[in-house]
């Protein structure tokens, strides 16, 4: 029996390159780290948690002004554990913004953005902005008073940019005012456009980290 498993593993390894993966991804040397080094993987964990809970929420959520609010009431009151899934998604968003910002500050304080990790930082700033974009677009989706008026003001601020402000405002709102089209656009951005960009940038971020290794904590020599 032991032989069978050994053979099966070998068969898979020949075709998938499991050993190579293990050596390149997991069995790597690293500088001594501490708890501040866990914030990047914590951000990734929270992102994946948001993806998972978000997928569950789309099963019941309806992005139209007539039904968005009621569909969330339904999730909160009728769906089994709907309140838990939405609660995790709601608080997970806040926590993710917090963790991503602290991760950025940690990188700044240890000057990990310097040679050879400049591009990792650049991609990271992109991820920070996308995370805030996820927060902004997600805030409108419950279609309650707070969401509606905060988004009205938020898009107004975007509309105050000189020359192209009017265009940005109309592109965000899908017209001069907040409407069904705005909700549809924010929904599309929240569940397709921004997550797709985030997946791509996270992939790049991780590749760069593995390529250059985690940076060490600087001492007087650095």
């Amino acid at each position, binding site marked *: 029996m032991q032989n069978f498993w050994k053979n099966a593993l070998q068969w898979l390894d020949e075709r998938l390159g499991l050993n190579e993966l293990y050596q390149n991804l997991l069995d790597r040397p690293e500088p001594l780290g501490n708890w501040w080094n866990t914030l990047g993987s914590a951000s990734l964990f929270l992102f994946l948690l948001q993806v998972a809970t978000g997928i569950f929420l789309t099963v019941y959520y309806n992005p139209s002004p007539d039904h968005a609010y009621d569909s969330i*009431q339904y999730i*909160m009151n009728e769906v089994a554990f709907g309140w838990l899934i939405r609660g995790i998604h709601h608080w997970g968003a806040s926590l993710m913004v917090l963790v991503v910002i602290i991760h950025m*500050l940690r990188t700044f304080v240890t000057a990990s953005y*310097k*040679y050879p990790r400049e591009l990792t930082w*650049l991609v990271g700033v992109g991820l920070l902005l996308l995370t805030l974009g996820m927060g*902004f677009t997600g805030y409108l989706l419950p279609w309650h008073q707070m969401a509606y*008026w905060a988004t009205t003001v938020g898009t107004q601020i975007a509309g105050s940019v000189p020359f192209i402000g009017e265009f940005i405002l109309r592109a965000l709102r899908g017209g001069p005012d907040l409407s069904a089209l705005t909700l549809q656009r924010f929904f599309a951005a929240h569940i397709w456009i921004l997550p797709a960009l985030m997946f791509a940038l996270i992939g790049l971020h991780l590749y760069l980290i593995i390529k250059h290794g985690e940076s060490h904590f600087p001492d007087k*020599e650095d």
Partner: protein
Amino acid sequence: MNEDVKQQIHEKYERELQRGERFWPDSIFKDAIMALALFIVLILLATFVGVHDSPKADPSDTSYIPRPEWYFLFLFKFLALYGQIPVLGKIEWIATALIPGIAIGILTLLPFIDKSPRRYYAKRALPLGIMGILVWGMVWLTLLADYPTVAPDGSSTPGILQAIAGIVIPLLAYIAFTVMAYTLKERAPHGILLTALGAGALMAGFSLLSMILYPLPAKETAEHPTSLVDRITAGQDLYSIHCLECHGEDGAVKVIEGVAGLEGTVISPISSRDVLYTLNDASLGEIIAYGRPDLGMPPFGKAYNPEGLTRAEIDYIIAFMRHTWDDRYEMPKIQPLFPPLAPNEVPSYEVHITPIVKRYCLSCHRPGKDSNDYFMDTYENILNSGDNGDMNVIAGDENSFLLQVIQGKPILNPDGSEAIGVMPPSGTLKPDVIEVFRRWVLMGMPRTAEEAATLTWPTP
């Protein structure tokens, strides 16, 4: 950066790796513990704090004060303070587009701006000082977000204090940092550290000063129903106040009787299948909001009637109608507002009066509302507060003002004008509610259930 420096960096990193750890299992282990801790925190937050909800979006209710997510609050506050700066404050795009744009630009291009290979913190006083003050300023702007920028007496002192803390001191500190970095040379880190600590303390000081001198305005806590049962009950209350007069308690009225101006109007019984099966929730909502002026139905929506119903309130009424009359919906179990009275039972404040007052009176009769200072938020206030303190409720007296006005008898001044109108101002309380008030006052306003249990209501 020349090749030598690059070589040095790589060699140093190799040495760090030699005395380092393994990604698996050392780092992964810590990562896993961190992820687990965050997951537990999230479950606790979702379970014990929940999601703060607000009523359904209502484009007609422009009085709503918007508030962004907490991580945008600092920007919100910055814009509010910037807008108060004379002259410059009128050029909105400087604060909304230019400054954030520059900040994001610097953050993005940081590795290409800060090109020195030095990583040790003592050799990086300037960038650390700038970032430190920026983050500290964002923290204080976030904390200050809900504090007013204009004092109740109209002076703009709080705004000025906050602007000093959140904008002026950071700017001055930045100028000082830059000057020091270029003039003090090797003593610069020391100077920047001291300046940063001083500026940080001043920022906190001015913020706290503004918070203490001009505290948060009292918060209006508007409760709104979230569960289906709560929404149906809220809808029932609204129906009793706004709709019952014409449509009747059971919604079956076909010809309106006893309503001035609409006497004899023929209407569709709104509890009938004809109405409930052929109109969906959206159409019902529009009919309530716009009315059907040609058929006698006035508009009830806030957009057409300043005293009218919000979008959310209309939805509660529809939820009530569906679950009460539409046979395709199942009525959830609803607790009565208060336990019905037995023939000889005397009601008490804590069991009967509290929920009734909360539902029917407290929306106006509470501190902060214009109600001639008659507040009904506590037992003592119901008895004694307001302009007619000693007349509100008199034990055993049918002439108590409270009992008169809820039974349709306004209190008149000596000259015949109305001093206190009938209550509630629109619609009337249900007979069983009035009966609770009568028995409670006539039997001497018992406070607890035990006190009430010692009393007996005399049946004729």
